[in-house]
């Protein structure tokens, strides 16, 4: 059975591109959400293995959503994505509990697999 994935991004075009990428990489994209609140609701309903989570959301930040999702054990692993660089956010990235951060410029199947196969991802709550 393939890995289920949820895409959270307020930008429809980016969600579509990401969905295509994930499909091609063999993920099963089970849902999409455009803001923090619906992200939590969708995660509760779908319990995905992986969440691709944008940092900048209209109602909150990706860091906050990551914290909620992991605390409530709604998802397996979280990958933060942003069109900004990790250095703009400093320690927040490491503290969020996400297994990794990928700049949207560098998003590719290879980058996703590298982050998800990272040993740190074994520590993530199942």
């Amino acid at each position, binding site marked *: 059975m393939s890995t289920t994935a949820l895409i959270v991004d307020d930008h429809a*075009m*980016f969600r579509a591109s*990401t969905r295509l990428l994930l499909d091609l990489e063999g993920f099963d994209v089970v849902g999409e959400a455009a803001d923090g609140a619906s992200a939590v609701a969708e995660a509760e309903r779908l319990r995905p293995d992986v969440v691709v989570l944008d940092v900048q959301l209209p109602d909150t930040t990706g860091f906050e959503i990551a914290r909620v999702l992991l605390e409530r054990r709604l998802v397996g692993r979280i990958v933060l994505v942003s*069109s*900004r660089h990790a250095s703009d956010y*400093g320690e927040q990235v490491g503290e969020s509990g996400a297994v990794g951060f990928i700049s*949207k*410029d560098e998003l*590719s199947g290879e980058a996703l697999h590298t982050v998800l196969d990272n040993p740190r991802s074994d520590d993530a709550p199942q």
Partner: protein
Amino acid sequence: MRLSDRSLRRLAWSAFVLFLLVVAVDIALSAAASADSTFATAGATAGFLGFMLLIASFPAVGVVIVLNQPRNRIGWLLLAIGAAWTASGLLDIYATWALAVQPDTAPGGYVALAVLNGSWVPGVALMGIWLILLFPDGRLPSPRWRWLSRVTVMVMVLGPLALTLAPGRIDFEPEPDGIENPLGVESLAPLLDILVPILLGLLPCCMVAAAVSLVLRFRRARGAERLQLKWLTTAGAFVAVSFVVGMTLSVPAVRDGLSISDTAMDLIDTVSFLSFLLVPVAVGVAVSRHGLYGIDAVISRALVVGALGVFITGVYVAIVVGVGALIGQQGPSVALSVVATAVVAVAFQPVRERVQRWVNRWVYGERATPYEVLADFASRVTGRYTTAELLPRLAETVSEGLGGARVEVWVRTGDDLVREVSWPAGMEPAEPVHVGANASLPLAGDRVVAVRHREELLGALVVTKPAGETVTPPEEAMLEQVATQAGLVLRNLRLIDDLKSSRVRLVASQDTERRRLERNLHDGAQQSLVSVALLTRMAAARASDPEVKKSLSDAGEQLQAAIDELRELARGIHPVVLTERGLGPALNSLAERAQVPVLVEADLRDRLPEAVEATLYLVAAETIRNAARHAGAGTVRVRVVLEDGDVRLEVVDDGAEGADPSVSTGLHGLGDRVAAVDGVIEVDSSVGEGTRIMCRVPVATARSAVLEEIS
């Protein structure tokens, strides 16, 4: 370790109680000694009691000061003076007791005597140097006086030590030749023969230096501090005069010439001795500021009464003795006395008025005429004075014009009057006063003058003359004139305040606009480009035709370059890292991307108000850009520190050319921006030495400005 105010107060009380106990022991031993011994006379005991009373006045005032201001060093200094003299007195009594009164009952009498020999040095140094040097705020007048404090400490430590160890005879009343110092070290004699005179010679030199520091402090002092210093100097002058008079009169020739009786001489001695009490009293008044403003009245009264005394005595002597001698009168003449009395009676009032005028001029300084006050004020209003300076100047000018009267300027805000300034400065804080519907002014003072502009009440001037003086009609007229001009000033101040808050709003809205623009770029164009780039990369990865693959990769790379450019643009408008993580990380990120090497040293624990962060970031960014572009800089050093409630940003480059603020529009625009958050920016550049930009912004003001903007 930092003690709480409460512990400090307790400590002071305990020290004072201990002091009283030791004094009680001193007195008991002294009384027992005089009753029991042949050498201690009742007179000596009385003298000792008087001395103890005098000494006790210092720590008594000290404990009062510490209870009110536990951290004022003057209070502790007064306690230390008490401790030093008590210790010395205790040694004295103990040595007397152990050696002369009850020999063999107490050990260590000779040792006590040897230590006593040098024990007066700390007490004298505390009173004669420290008190004068640290008065009135407990701090040195300036760091330049540190040498004096160091020399004094050295004398206070080494002086007693050297005197205690110096071999030789020590005075001891029962033995006419004194006794040999039991602690004297013979081998140190050559050293101490030189050291002791040097140390004891330094003591009066330090006292003179301390007096000089007091004079310099006085010349520099303004407002309340000047009054505090006046109290001490007045007391000091009185002590000096009474001592000089006492000593002059005690010279046998003078004493016989004036045929002063023993009783009178005792009285004079007692007065000059007790005049020393004025010193702690003056220190207490000055430091507690209780009745501080009375000093000019005290001096003025004393001088007028003294001068009138001289006048009356002079008239009597001139008429009764002088005229009597001229007409060959022997002995006192009733007629001449009557004439003298009549002359005094007739001349008294005019003379008193004349003397009072002289004294006022001398005490309160030359007073300006009403015309001068108006001219001076008018020039100040039109001159380039800032809001903060103008009102104190107004109060000062009016005070000068009214011969040292106390002047308060109240400014209306809403329905309340608030006291903005007072002259002399340092009055007790005043509560805002509500202005009633009838616009009456419920303020206390000799004269309360409303300040209006076109019938609108904007504030009030309150004048309180020195005790015993009234506001004269010309002064009244001047006040009215000044109040008319002050109306214009207060209206301008209000306009300036409005302008300033609108400028702050402008800067804040600029910042908001920049953030919005950055976000729009990021959310709109950039996101779309990023998506397209992702799709292109995916397509390139999957394309089987090498030519298509190549074209797609090229397209992806060009897209990426466009995204990077767009990101740099957004970052220039408002860097995300500044919003997210604050000034320090934003400056570091700036340094990483700069065209020249940049060293950042940002010592900030907490986030600063948004407006301050944005302003300082823009200053640093513009300066670094400037350095990279024009100055041919080697390394740029950026430093941010918090200092007395201000943030200070310093950007130094070692470039060959300088930045000229009048030429560089970028830096000029920054000046306006910095001013909007109440800051200042200084550009210091000289060809060949690089440029130094110093920017200082108050945190609190900027914070309140931002709060105002938010509300």
